[in-house]
């Protein structure tokens, strides 16, 4: 994962909190999509419990992933497609570059793909002298600005139309406007030229179907369909978990994906791509390649505690309800996989110690699980990651995150075993707090390690006499 910039979660979050444009964009996003998705689940013909059925479908598929993938690959090869299993990002990139070199590709177009962000595809292509054009409007904006996506589905959510107006004036030399239809028209014109000139198209895969041998892509702009049909070569990249065994399962997951992603019953453009064009077909690429990426997923698959994370279909519904994401935005997570999904996936894929702030910097409120189209128990996974950090774990190469914190909880575990000791510490806190600054009875400033609390809030002091003390001395009886 070469493109990761391990930004300081806390510092980046603070920057986001102080950005009023971002704050209002995040609120709008969550009000629209968060609520819309909840409503869309309630309006499902099968009812909202279809999420539970989908969870079961994912559980079975992931448990049989080897066989399901074999079926997918056999069917795609039967249709004339070429398949490559990439052990890691480098292997995937090497395959993509070799394919591009073979066709002397100068310009590639790309449909929105998170997995391509995961492996750092754009950097690799540019490094090899190949121009790459993002064709999703949001991704196009981000690429022009030289930034990273801040949301899985709405990558440019952090930019206002004024930002985009200035960006377009600067980069594609149109007169400044902040009128969305005019900006969209300008992007469309610029992109149309890219589509017509491109020698190669890249896409991700929302959910493949093993039974029929298709990869399936969903978009609302038609750009993925153009990226995958206009150039002579189409390379699709998918995480190895993004597959349904049967078409009947696929139908359920696809309908839930669209609801989770954009509160839609169905995306505007859904393409089932099974290989290159047939001889007599006018449209479609001459070559179709599918890169199936592992990049750490086998390790997740092998651990029953974390396997559930592979059920994820990357719809971003959890981002649209997460109260933490809603305040800090996507960039704080240091990687395009952000929000609750990022908080679990990034530590698992790229190092639990390295991404510890992602899984610790969440409140465990559970809104993500209720929003998840496949009902992944994200809070359970966050807790399991925290357990690895607390005591270290050889299997996951995790070292203990904080020795002082371990010391505090060890001490705590002694105190809670003895009510007398517990009472002593309560009294100690009661005595200590008499030296702290107060306002109308509320403490204004706590000492470290609690000082963070009172940076933004006050706190009620410890009571003179605890409840248990009152009960014991008969004050309540």
């Amino acid at each position, binding site marked *: 994962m070469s493109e990761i910039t391990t930004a300081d979660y806390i510092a980046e979050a603070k920057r986001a909190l102080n950005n009023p444009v971002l704050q209002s964009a995040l609120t709008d996003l969550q009000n629209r999509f968060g609520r819309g998705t909840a409503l869309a689940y309630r309006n499902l013909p099968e009812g909202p419990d279809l999420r539970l059925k989908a969870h079961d479908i994912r559980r079975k598929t992931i448990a049989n992933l080897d066989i399901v993938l074999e079926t997918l690959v056999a069917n795609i090869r039967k249709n004339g497609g070429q398949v490559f299993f990439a052990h890691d990002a480098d292997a995937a990139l090497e395959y993509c570059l070799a394919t591009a070199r073979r066709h002397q590709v100068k310009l590639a177009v790309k449909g929105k793909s998170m997995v391509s962000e995961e492996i750092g595809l754009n950097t690799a292509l540019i490094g090899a002298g190949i121009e790459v054009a993002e064709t999703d409007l949001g991704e196009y904006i981000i690429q022009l600005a030289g930034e990273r996506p801040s949301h899985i589905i709405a990558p440019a959510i952090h930019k206002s139309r004024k930002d985009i107006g200035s960006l377009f004036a600067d980069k594609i030399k149109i007169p400044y406007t902040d009128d969305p239809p005019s900006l969209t028209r300008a992007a469309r014109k610029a992109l149309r030229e890219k589509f017509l000139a491109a020698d190669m198209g890249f896409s991700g895969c929302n959910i493949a179907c093993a039974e029929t041998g298709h990869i399936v892509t969903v978009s609302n702009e038609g750009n993925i369909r153009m990226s995958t049909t206009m150039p002579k070569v189409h390379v699709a990249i998918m995480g190895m978990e993004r597959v349904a065994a049967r078409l009947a399962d696929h139908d359920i997951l696809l309908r839930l994906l669209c609801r989770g992603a954009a509160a839609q019953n169905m995306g505007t453009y859904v393409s089932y791509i099974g290989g290159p064009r047939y001889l007599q077909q006018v449209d479609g690429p001459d070559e179709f390649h599918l890169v199936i990426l592992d990049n750490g997923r086998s390790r997740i698959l092998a651990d029953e505690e974390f396997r559930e994370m592979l059920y994820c279909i990357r719809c971003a519904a959890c981002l649209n309800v997460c109260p933490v994401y809603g305040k800090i935005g996507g960039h704080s997570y240091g990687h395009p996989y952000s929000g609750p999904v990022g908080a679990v996936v990034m530590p698992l894929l790229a190092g639990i110690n390295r991404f510890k702030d992602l899984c610790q910097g969440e409140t465990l409120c559970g809104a993500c699980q209720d929003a998840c189209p496949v009902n992944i128990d994200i809070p359970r996974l966050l807790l399991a990651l925290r*357990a690895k*950090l607390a005591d270290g774990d050889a299997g996951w190469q995790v070292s203990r995150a904080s020795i002082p914190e371990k010391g505090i909880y060890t001490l705590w575990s002694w105190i809670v075993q003895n009510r007398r000791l517990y009472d002593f510490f309560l009294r100690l806190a009661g005595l200590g707090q008499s030296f702290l600054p107060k306002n109308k009875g509320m403490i204004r400033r706590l000492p470290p390690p609690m000082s963070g609390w009172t940076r933004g*809030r006050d706190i009620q002091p410890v009571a003179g006499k605890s*409840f248990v003390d009152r*009960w014991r001395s008969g004050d309540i009886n």
Partner: protein
Amino acid sequence: MSDPNKTVTLFIQCLVDGIYPEVGEAMVRIFRKLGINLICPTKQTCCGQPAFNAGYRREAGVAAKRFIDIFEAAEVIVCPSGSCVTMVRHHYPQLFEDDDSWLQRARQVAAKTYELTEYIVDVLGVEDLGAHYDGTITYHDSCHLLRNLRVKAQPRKLLSKISGAEFIEMNDADRCCGFGGSFSVKYADISAAMAADKVDNIIACGADTVVGCDMGCLMNIQGMLSRKGVDIKIMHIAQILAA
């Protein structure tokens, strides 16, 4: 379904015990009014949730075993916090999944542990406690109570029966206040920003009192109200129901 004549054993959340003992006292008054016998084990300390949520399972396990030792003889256990009940009901069985004998004991304790409003409404079948309150109240859904115990209607039913009080729903009542245990200290700026949003919603709804079922959230909300100098009261539901 539990027998309403059972003796209730009080499981006092540590925040209530040490910082808000008046919430526990209010709970006692409610049960007394309902004619229910009470026991309060005075050896109790903490259920272990802070350690569990921070990942320290060994330390949480120590607290959990002690809790089970103290409480397993109880007929029924009631706690004024959805978060602590979630710990006992959902996380104790997880803590002991590799230890059959403790797992069995954990499950038995979990099965008779209830959150206060859940116990009053679902088990005792009581909605009107004859409380009176002069004021406009709004209710904050605590995350663990709402999403782990699925308790949403019970507190609202109880609040709707309070005479003299007007009830207003705030916007995003079910959105996290930003407390999150040690999150509120470790990631204090994010936590405070979430609390500020919650307080904005409370102010916007026009209530003069915000009621909740968990002192963790209420302590957070109270701290933000105080820092902003906003004159809105926080009350645990036990306090308003005992009024």
